């Protein structure tokens, strides 16, 4: 891949080398949006395909796939939007996700017969590089660290 950098001077007067540790919370939030959006797509598509093509094989697992997809969509919406309900929605969705991945993760290990087919959350998300167990931790950390930073709140302080 050739380097096109010379053609155009770096047009965006980007904040070069802005020190990472105290960057505004929009930065990590955008990474979380990328992560959640991709998992929303992956889990929802997986659930729909499974339910449409072979629902009778493992109805519980497939419904769980779809449910996890809906939870990821809710979390993505909560992170993208900036409304009164955005943070509560994000908290609820990421919290549900945390409980879900722990419950299903444990259940799939101790009672594997109940989960003959994998879901996104089976074995703590091993099929997805364990990202499903890391993701809610990152989400909760971000929500906790940025609590009270909602624009509406700034005026009332």
């Amino acid at each position, binding site marked *: *891949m050739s380097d*096109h950098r010379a053609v155009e001077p770096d047009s965006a007067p*980007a904040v070069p080398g802005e020190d990472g540790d105290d960057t505004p919370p929009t*930065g*990590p939030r955008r990474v979380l949006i990328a992560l959640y959006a991709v998992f929303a797509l*992956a889990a929802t598509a997986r659930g729909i395909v499974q339910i449409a093509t072979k629902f009778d094989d493992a109805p519980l697992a497939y419904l769980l796939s779809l449910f996890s997809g809906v939870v990821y969509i809710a979390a993505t919406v909560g992170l993208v939007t900036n409304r009164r309900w955005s943070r509560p929605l994000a908290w609820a969705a990421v919290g549900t996700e945390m409980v879900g991945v722990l419950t299903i993760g444990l259940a799939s290990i101790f009672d594997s017969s109940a989960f003959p087919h994998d879901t996104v959350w089976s074995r703590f998300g091993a099929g997805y590089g364990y990202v499903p167990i890391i993701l809610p931790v990152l989400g909760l950390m971000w929500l906790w660290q940025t609590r009270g930073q909602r624009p509406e709140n700034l005026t009332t302080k």
Partner: protein
Amino acid sequence: MIQPLAIGILSAGLLLGAWTGFQAWRRRPTTEAQMVGAIVLEVALLVQAVVAIIGIIGGRELTEPVTFVAYALGILLPLPLGFYLARAERTRWGSLSLCFTAVVVAVMTLRLLQLWQAGRV
């Protein structure tokens, strides 16, 4: 599906991921070259999706055709998202967003290759 193209896409995805990941580690926003790289990769994905769907119409037997088509089309979505986020966020976090979506493209390509091979019985 053209195997060399898929392997090229897989490598390019990993390369772009490593490159933008390094950029994030250096606390830098993405460079022009990285953005061009993302566009080139996306074009390759479009070509691959068209070739794959022509292959299926042409009578390729797959064990999981629906999943395969979902992957072939779904793989087009992550990079535009990463591209948009990297443009909007001119910090290391933009680089990290593009990094993640590029790696996702590589992983999805691997899955596409597996699904394609699985049809060969």
